[in-house]
């Protein structure tokens, strides 16, 4: 993002405002949703995490310019995401036997 013209930047600025409004909206929705019983608490968690992921996507894609980045950065982000998932999922799965057998 280093050779943009003033016009592109102005256009991008408008986009930033939209993203900002979407983030505010997402915050309101997630607060309200947390007070609505969806039947199981797991569903509440899923909804909240889904909204959070959407917000995170907006921040990463637009504020952090990931929507139009260089290949090197994409590779790094992808690798990090992979190892992040490995860290979280494998640790949780490793406890699966105990969790399943919990009374």
């Amino acid at each position, binding site marked *: 993002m280093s050779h943009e013209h*003033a016009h592109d930047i102005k256009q991008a600025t408008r986009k930033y405002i939209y993203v*900002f409004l979407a*983030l505010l909206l997402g915050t309101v929705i*997630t607060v309200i949703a947390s007070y609505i019983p969806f039947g199981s608490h797991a569903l509440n968690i899923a909804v909240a*995490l889904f909204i959070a992921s959407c917000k995170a996507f907006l*921040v990463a894609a637009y*504020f952090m310019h990931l929507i139009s980045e260089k290949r090197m950065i994409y590779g790094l982000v992808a690798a990090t*995401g992979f190892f992040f998932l490995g*860290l979280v999922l494998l640790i949780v799965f490793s406890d699966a036997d105990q969790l399943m057998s919990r009374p």
Partner: protein
Amino acid sequence: MSSAAMEIPYSVEPRPDTGLYNGKVGIWLFLASEVMLFGALFSSYIMLRVGSDAWPVHMLNVPIGTLNTTVLITSSITVVLAWAALKLKEFNKFRLYMGLTVVLALTFAIIKSFEYRSKFVHYAVEYTHNGQVIEATGHIEGSPWNWSLKTLQNPDHPIESIVFHPDAAGHGHPGEGATIHAGEHEAVTIATKDIHKLESFGPWHHTYLAIYFTLTGLHALHVLGGAAVLAWFWITGPAMWRTDPERLTNRVEVTGLFWHFVDLVWIFLFPVLYLL
């Protein structure tokens, strides 16, 4: 050995084959390690939560949390606008947005510190009343900070009794056994000799609070660190804008990336700690 030979290449202009300048590669690498840092804490959160008998929901002050979320999101847009202003060569706008970002960052930190304080003046007490063991949560009159049974029994300043204002039922206590007797919402006086346990809602009280303080504490350190760097550019920006505007723009972009990441972490922390 001339200093011209020592110029580090691509510290301002992008390297042709990667299309990136050094600082941008550096910050993304750093953020990758930050993802793993917070990732480990999130996975600890999951382990502790699925392994616990009871996990509090809506225990923190949600309106304040929502306000703070808004503050941080706003600071994220102001920092990106500050960068865009530099790109458009509108330096005064940059100063305005950068200043706003710093103010918002400090606002976030101040609100957070009030939230922390509220945990240390909130107590769980276990005491004997008419031969019956009662557990209650609430506040001690005078809102003392972080007392324990040891504080009351301090031989130099022994405290004979405390006036305790229990919480309304269903509010506040994480974990099992928050038994508050009906009609006991008014203040009670408890003699120190009857108290078995007195503990504020600090990180030691429950693993939920432990992970709450650790995650938000680490996040708050990031906020303060980021705010310091942003403030630095607000102060030194004018001088650098005259000598090396390209570099200043890059640095603001790089710091902005860090700041958005701090925002991004909070986007997950807020529902995970406040709402679920």
